[in-house]
């Protein structure tokens, strides 16, 4: 009985694991989706950094000059990410 259960288990595992191998190659939109998800995560990180810098400035940790320089840098980084997202949308059309 245990032998049969073991055989059934192995057959089940083999069937489950090989499902993807029976399909055709991945459509391009799936890899675009992955890249979009990564860029969205990066965008949120950049936004959090901008908010943190604003909070540090409001708390008096940064002078006006230092905050403006840092804010410029962070916004430039965020804009780069937005541009990459836009280019991705163009490829997806």
């Amino acid at each position: 009985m245990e032998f049969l259960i073991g055989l059934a288990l192995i057959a089940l595992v083999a069937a489950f694991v090989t499902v993807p191998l029976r399909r055709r190659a991945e459509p391009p939109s799936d890899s675009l989706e992955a890249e979009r998800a990564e860029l969205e995560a990066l965008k949120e990180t950049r936004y959090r950094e901008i908010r943190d810098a604003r909070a540090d400035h409001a708390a008096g940790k940064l002078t006006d000059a230092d905050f403006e320089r840092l804010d410029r840098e962070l916004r430039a980084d965020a804009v780069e990410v937005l541009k990459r997202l836009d280019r991705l949308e163009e490829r997806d059309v």
Partner: protein
Amino acid sequence: MLALGSAALAASLLVALYATGAALRGGIERDRRWVDSSRRAVYAFAALITIAVVIVESAFIGDDFSFEVVAEHSSTTTPTFYKLTAMWSSQEGSLLLWAWVLSLASSGVLYLTRRRLRELAPYATAVLMAIAAFFVGLMLIAASPFAELSPAPAEGAGLTPLLRNPYMVIHPPMLYSGYVLLSIPFAFAIAALITRRLDAAWIRSTRSFALTAWAFLGLGLLLGSRWSYEELGWGGYWGWDPVENAALMPWLIATAYIHSIMVQERRGMLKVWNVSLICGAFVLALVGTFLVRSGILESIHAFGASTVGGPLLGLIAVTAIGSSVLIATRFDGLRSERRIRSPLSREAIFLVNNLLLVGLAAVVLWGTFFPLIAEAVTGTRSSLGPPWFERFVTPLGVGLVLFTGIGPLLAWGKLSPSAAGRLLLWPGVAAGTTAVALALLTDAGESLWALFLFSFAAFTAVALGQEVWRAASARRALTGEGRGIALGRAVARNRRRYGGYLVHAGIAILLVGVAASSSFQTNRDLRLDVGESADVGDYTVTYERLDSDPTNERIAFAATLDVDRDGRDFATLSPARNYYPTMDPAAGPIGRYFEGEATSEIGLRAGAGEDFWTAFQPDLSVLDDDIARGNVELAELPPAAQGVAILALAESYAESPPPATFRVIVNPLVVWIWIGALVGLGGAAIALWPSAAARKRVRAAYAARLGRELEKA
């Protein structure tokens, strides 16, 4: 069921090897089908290991002594709760636990990243499943939980008495979860190095796993310390024992890592540090497993005889050397994108933080391994005790407390000197005031390091409070909200930051408890007869009586102590000593109940200011003649009759006991160690909790994706 369990384990090895190969093929050929197949193989691996765990646990619950692991670590008289958890008291069971937690964590991270990190995930999968294959292979070759005993004995050896404690039950799964969860960021770091995708993407996706690993390791350390305090009868919570150090080292490096990755995320710096720290943390997690499981702590010779020590050492070597080679060959890609502009910046403080924590880990590593190396070279066993560790750890730890307060005050990039002066003023005043007050009004000045630590803890408390106050005030100024609402919303909008502040507060509180209880403890060993009293500090301890408290598992003697403080009733405590029977027939049918393993139940009155702690050691030598006579005269009687004689002996001893030894310890502020640790863990939970905004973004992302796909259809 043995055969089914063995089959599940063997199948899991094949599946793990398949997952490794399929993942590598999918990564190299960029074929999603093989990558998806490898991910499914990870899920199947988790299912097969879970089946193996269920079979072993069922055997423990059902007292199936045909399983060798059950026969050696459980018995029919072991309480059900301890039967369930006895699995990980054994070599075989702990390796199975390692593999099981790894399978669940790997399944989790691969499910969560199934649509992201497309270039990294295949190589991370291969690393995780290679590690899994190692542990399963080790079980199959050297320590199978499905080894059979034939014929099966009628009774098992029982669980080691020292492990019959709730803290010891939870401690191994927590520690192992911590070790295993470090493998997740490690695997993705290796994948990032292989693919040269050295930006912060792998850090972002695995940060939660790193923080969770840190929290589990911390919880495991806390539980082990509490167990030591309550169970081992010496009154301490940390002895710099190699087994303790084995868990502390990866925790220290993981602490450095979870801070240092913030610098890479924000400023693109410390990339070499981060890959090195996570590789180091995981190597140390393997070292911890090796120390506990290889027998090397008994002696270098026990290690030589161990079947798992050599392979574990091999895995450590491959991991350490392989990681180092990858880091060295990818050095150019790991260059920082920016420089540290000012010492008055958060990134500069995090670099100092890294140095302090790595320094601490290095001290602990040297102190743990030097005796083992010395024994291997000279043949003479030696050890470095607590005084050696404390000489080096204390100044580093005191410095760390200061920086847990300074770090949150600073900003990313640069803090102007005038702003620094303004922000450091009140914390500095608090530190100075605390130092002066304690030196003048208490005995704290007798220990300079303790005085420094208390002062720096005050600095940290005021610094963190100031940060929270300023955040609430800034939000209030913008929104007009009430102070309480402004504070709550400021915390809710930035759980990582304020959760982190709470962790810092918890660590500072914990270290205050450590400093006070280490430096100002009162410790006396007393020898008292029934009715006698003795003074310990402000307390008077009177030994009132002795009771015998037998069960079918053990004999126990419990002393009743009346404790007065400054002439008033303070507490009535009942420290006890439990005696579990030995299986050694040479001890005799009566003697085996008095000469087996003994454990202590302490008497404890905990308080915010100090703990009154006591342990008890009865003098059983007066029973030697009776035991020897009973071993001879009662040898042929049935066990039930022998049991009656043993109970009668214990009762007569309790009615007229000889003087007993009591260890009495007055431990200042020790309760704040446990409170501080719980506060820190609470902070970690807050930092890990996904915000409502994050959940809304995930829903919006799915809605947007649905919209796009509907357009194309």
